């Protein structure tokens, strides 16, 4: 535990991408930096350990991206997914500042991966970290240690002493001991509250019990709540969370990427009452997977079943749990403990409506249902080739949108719209300023990296560096 008599220049709360970008930047500026990470060393890095790629602006192709991705295209993409729920000033700042990440990250130990054929669809706009997010975090921790950043694992900051927008000290717990840490400035980079089920229940009711949390169990939102209680101005829909369809057999926390399921567009999805409830083939899966979490959250017991036949199997990425296999639809229903007769008749009705049109998984094809409610707009082939397969689905929460307002210096803005003196925020805890709704692949890391660096720089500057 840090010595309570020692005053650090910069205290960083959190141990993910934004926290380490802030710590490295502040330390390079000359400040003494203390990082407090809640997790053990093995699970350090918050949700960043599950990431894969980062979106960044670039004016030309490089060894790692196949063509330019300029500010306007980036901005249009962001506007498209948020539907305007963004702060254009901060968003454009993020986009412009992202340009230097392609060099800054390797300068701090991160390695890029050359585009490979196969799974990568984002080779124009995104850089892929060699080895993924955990490898990136390993590099950052290594760099931070070499620079002399002080770091403590398994140390949870519980309370902040803030007086009129002025951070005084933090109370942290480690191995059952409580200590007080004073610092000239604080960077809060400790994520959202998506792992805090009681808090989610405030908006989602009992349904939240059945949510799977894709990332770290440590994102309890303790710091977010502290900042809001001390008068920080909130941004983002408190009910809002990025929710995808996951394999229901996924672990409650930290299942990461492998529990996602891409089978939905190639079959039908029914709920516990054996009713279809949404157009499974509305659009390409990468554009639709993030609405299915909410859809399933609204179903009885927050569970649904993706039903496909053996024709569908080669068309989507394998997932971590093998599908439930059955020789007949009724047998599949029994395996899921849903009504077999009902499932047989739902599949029959669907099959009658699936009247052809050429099937092409690469396009929004003409293979659609006729007279079905809800319809299936594309890829509607009959489910008629045994063996049949099924996956149970649950809502999987990636992150929450509620955060604290910040200005272009990453200073937390108070409810009277005045920025706090020495309180900075970066990463998920403030991403809602820029990404108020929807999601762009690799953009969470962009916000975290850009605002992490800004927060680190400004916190060090506040401390006199």
């Amino acid at each position, binding site marked *: 535990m840090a010595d309570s008599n020692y005053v650090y220049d910069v205290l960083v709360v959190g141990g993910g991408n934004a926290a380490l970008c802030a710590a490295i930047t502040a330390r390079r500026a000359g400040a003494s930096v203390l990082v407090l990470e809640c997790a053990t060393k*093995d*699970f350090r890095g918050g949700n960043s*350990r*599950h990431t*894969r790629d980062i979106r960044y602006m670039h004016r030309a192709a490089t060894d790692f991206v196949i063509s330019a991705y300029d500010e306007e295209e980036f901005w249009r993409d962001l506007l498209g997914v948020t539907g305007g729920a963004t702060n254009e000033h901060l968003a454009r700042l993020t986009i412009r500042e992202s340009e230097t990440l392609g060099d800054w990250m390797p300068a701090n130990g991160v*390695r890029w*991966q*050359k585009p*490979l*054929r*196969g*799974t990568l669809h984002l080779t124009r706009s995104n850089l*892929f970290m*060699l*080895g*993924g*997010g*955990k*490898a990136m975090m*390993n590099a950052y921790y*290594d760099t931070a240690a070499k620079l002399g950043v002080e770091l403590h694992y398994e140390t949870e900051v519980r309370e902040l002493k803030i007086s009129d927008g002025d951070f005084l000290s933090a109370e942290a717990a480690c191995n059952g001991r409580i200590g007080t840490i004073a610092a000239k400035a604080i960077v809060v980079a400790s994520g959202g509250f998506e792992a805090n089920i009681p808090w989610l229940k405030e908006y989602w009711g009992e349904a939240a019990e059945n949510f799977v949390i894709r990332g770290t169990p440590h994102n309890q939102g303790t710091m977010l709540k502290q900042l809001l209680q001390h008068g920080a101005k909130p941004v983002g829909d408190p009910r809002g969370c990025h929710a995808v369809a996951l394999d229901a057999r996924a*672990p409650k926390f*930290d299942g*990461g*990427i*492998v*529990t996602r399921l891409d089978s939905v567009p190639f079959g039908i999805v029914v709920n516990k009452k054996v009713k279809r409830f949404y157009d499974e083939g509305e659009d390409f899966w990468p554009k639709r997977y993030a609405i299915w979490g909410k859809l399933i959250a609204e179903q009885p017991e927050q569970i649904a079943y993706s039903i496909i036949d053996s024709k569908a*199997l*080669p068309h989507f*990425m*394998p*997932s*971590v749990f*093998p599908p439930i296999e059955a020789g007949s639809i009724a047998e599949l229903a029994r395996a899921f403990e849903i009504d077999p007769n009902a499932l047989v008749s739902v599949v029959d009705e669907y099959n009658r409506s699936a009247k052809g049109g050429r099937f092409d998984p690469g396009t929004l094809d003409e293979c659609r249902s006729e007279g079905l409610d809800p319809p299936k707009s594309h890829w509607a082939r009959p489910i008629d080739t045994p063996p049949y397969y099924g996956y149970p689905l649950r809502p999987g929460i990636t992150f929450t949108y509620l955060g604290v307002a910040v200005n272009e210096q990453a200073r937390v803005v108070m409810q009277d719209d005045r920025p706090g003196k020495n309180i900075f925020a970066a990463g998920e805890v403030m991403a809602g300023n820029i990404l108020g709704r929807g999601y762009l692949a690799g953009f969470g890391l962009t916000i975290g990296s850009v605002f992490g660096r800004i927060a680190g720089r400004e916190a060090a500057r506040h401390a006199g560096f």
Partner: protein
Amino acid sequence: MPDFDLVKDGARQMTICNACRYCEGYCAVFPAMEQRRTFNKADLTYLANLCFDCRDCYYACQYAPPHEFGVNVPKLMSELRADTYREFTWPAIMSGLFNRNALAVTAITVASILIVLALVLLFQGSDLLFATHLGEGTFYRVVPFVAMTVPPSLIAIYGLVIFVVGALRFWRETQGPVAALVNPAALWRATKDAFGLAYMKGGGAGCNYPAEQFSRARMWHHHLVFYGFLLDFAATSIAAFYDHFLGWQAPYPYFSAPVVLGTTGGIGLIVGTVGLLYLKWISDRAPADSSMFGMDVAFLALLFLTSFTGLLLLALRETSAMGTLLVIHLGVVAGLFITLPYGKFAHVVYRYAALVRYSIEQLRAETHSS
């Protein structure tokens, strides 16, 4: 006997990797895995022998222990490779030598030294052994020409036969028609990857060896061992040529080809093996398999002893210690070659076969996508 639990767990871990694919830039294992959806024993045997144990994927893995998925690919692959070596060796009764490999290798080497010593004492007598010999053909005065050439040739041929049998069985098991081996492009690519240790480069990052930091130390030391071994092999071949075809008998002058190549190779082997043993000693054991660990140490130690006794023999060949050193050196070399098919050297054969298979698959995929 294949370990069914290991195969089951291997399939489980590969299914997780195949749904993640974050490590695909590190080496050949992951792109090869992506060509499959399910993993039977043959697939796992292939993937395991494609793995160079660089361990990059272990430290990058969000599912590594203590995560409940417990993904530990380097350890899994090492265990599967140990199984490969056991399973494809010949005759089957000898597969037991892989189980306590360090002990077996030590016992065989000590026995070899003692047998050479006993034969020399029996047929040549101790006077010859401890005398100082000078001039051409001195080694043959201690160990006669026939004794020095015939048994090693037999041992070498025996080893070669076992590896050819093993390689063919491996090839068939991993579902490759023998005709597919006639593929110059694939053979060239595999040879390039093998000689350059392409998959100890971790996609540019190096190995996470001996621990979490990236390093090229293992690759360079392995190069020293491998090329040192080749230089020594070249030295021996040239010496044999001199002897059989030109009638020049050892010992050769200090600046002759066999001595220069042999000494360079020997120094490479000593530095390389000591380096690899040191790295292994301090390495993180979490991604390691204990049975492979013993096998590695035994083979490295034997390579070290071979070059060390060889160089010592060179240095002291004009003293009365020559006879004793020659006996020890020949005994160690005999031990090395007798255990060659039943120890870590096997990785050369199966890994090369796996690289050839990988090159065939990749060339096929490249043709499809272009």
